[in-house]
């Protein structure tokens, strides 16, 4: 097992996709913070455009919502990191990296060199997940640091760190959710043998293009059980990435942590089962 993990970590630091997605994380973070700054300036110029009410439901598309409190001149690091991460930009990169990295072993045929010698081929999934977990953590750190540095450059004295503990707690839950999304991509990549399919699926989920489907499911459940207040977004990794902000309640944090852990576990176990049962092509 440790040998396989070493193998995948060795490949991780040499694969171009790891470097490209990390660089993209930096660029997207800079771009997104600049766009947020533009939003703040527009709101300052036209205060009537400021919406004080958060939307009830998850919206379609990738968007960063500026907090009206930022108009007071003080911008907390945690809140800007929160909105940038909840936008799904980092999740998008995690999805792309995972699909490319996991499928490379099948696409190149390298798996044929090692799979036959393993008693349990499912271990290959654990080693992939470990490498993906390292890369997701690296991208998240790079993303957060870039947001903080760009924020400090743009807003100087108005930008303050705030509660490091809250930021750490938020980042930990988001890390778990991003990892569960990656686990889902591992599953679909292993299932279909196609990085194109899993990547497209992941991008659609991160872009919120699944929202109409989720709304339909919510309406169907509402028709049967109106009092339930069911929202499928609360039970899916992509939904929780969007809904779990730094100021969320303890209940939301707990739900995010539990759903992240449960999905990661389920998808990894399913992937291991497929890898173990299916012949290597």
């Amino acid at each position, binding site marked *: 097992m440790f040998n396989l993990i070493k193998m995948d970590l060795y*490949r991780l630091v040499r*694969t171009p996709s790891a470097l490209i997605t990390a660089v993209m994380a930096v660029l997207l973070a800079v771009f997104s913070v600049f766009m947020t700054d533009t939003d703040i300036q527009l709101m300052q110029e036209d205060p009537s455009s400021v919406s004080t009410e958060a939307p009830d439901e998850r919206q379609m598309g990738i968007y960063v919502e500026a907090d009206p409190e930022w108009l007071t001149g003080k911008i907390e690091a945690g809140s800007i990191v929160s909105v940038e991460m909840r936008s799904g930009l980092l999740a998008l990169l995690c999805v792309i990296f995972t699909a490319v990295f996991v499928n490379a072993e099948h696409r190149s045929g390298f798996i*044929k*060199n*090692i799979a036959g*010698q*393993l008693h349990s081929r499912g271990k290959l999934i654990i080693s992939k997940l470990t490498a993906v977990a390292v890369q997701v953590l690296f991208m998240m750190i790079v993303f957060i640091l870039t947001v903080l540095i760009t924020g400090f450059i743009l807003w100087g004295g108005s930008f303050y760190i705030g509660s490091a503990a809250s930021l750490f707690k938020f980042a930990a839950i988001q890390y778990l959710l991003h990892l569960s999304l990656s686990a889902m991509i591992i599953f679909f990549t292993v299932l279909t043998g196609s990085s194109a399919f899993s990547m497209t699926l992941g991008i659609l989920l991160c872009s919120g293009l699944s929202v109409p489907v989720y709304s339909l499911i919510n309406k169907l459940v509402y028709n049967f059980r109106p009092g339930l207040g069911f929202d499928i977004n609360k039970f899916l990794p992509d939904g929780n990435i969007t809904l779990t902000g730094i100021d969320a309640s303890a209940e939301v944090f707990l739900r995010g942590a539990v759903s992240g852990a449960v999905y990661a576990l389920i998808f990894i176990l399913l992937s291991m089962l497929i890898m173990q049962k299916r012949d290597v092509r």
Partner: protein
Amino acid sequence: MEYLLTTNGLTKQYGRHKAVNAADIHVKRGDIYGLIGRNGAGKTTLLKMISGLAKPTDGGFSFFGKSGKEVYGYMSRIGALIEAPGLYPNLSAAQNLKLKCLAAGVRRNGIIEELLGTVGLASAGKKKVRNFSLGMKQRLGIALALVGDPDLIILDEPINGLDPQGIAEVRETLARLNKEKNITFIISSHILEELSKTATVYGIMHNGVILQEMTRDELLEKCSERIELKADDTAMACTVLEKIGITEYKVADADTIQIFERLNDSGDITSALASDGIKTLEISLKNESLEDYYLNLTGGKSDV
């Protein structure tokens, strides 16, 4: 007899189609086992099952005398190059080997350089695989199969797409490894002429079935130049042959005698038989190549 590898009714079924049907092969240590068969005969599927990449639908195999679940502990003693070499194009040859070494837990210093040298790629270790020729990729694939000093190496069509020089290099490498390290090889190919230069034992596969296994000597005997004689009384014909001084002959079946000497004396033989009242039904000079032998056995002429 102690075999390194034997298969016992190994079967792989896809839907109703049996790609491999109760295949039994027997490989001794030090053999270069040539698995012969046309495209679609089931060679790759058989080799995939032996190398642990595909699960048999039925049957099994024993390796080092171990079978069933016990065999898993010995799978690391098998190196395989199935179909095209599986290589990361963006990594160098040395990095590809390093990955396999890490996975196999091989930590010996200098092993990568040694393996590259073994397959004649010593100077190409830092070159990215995407810039390799097909022959170089094939040799790197063999180097990957050699990681961990396996006792058995399975090579599926290792000379496919190679130019004559590449084929000669691969052949030379295999012969050297077999001789110097006593590595046993199973090599599949549909290029029979080439396989006949390397293999010491042959298994002929057709439509998923192993039709015949034989050593090189047995094959040479079957393919050697000879007179094939069919007479109405085989026993009497043998007596006549001995009377005229022919001793190198064999009764192949109830009607056929194979004569391996005085190949230009067909006329004398028929005269001698006639004078003793034995009727010659058929007499012909035979000289089969491995390909002819294969075609006769499988009853086909195409795509071999």
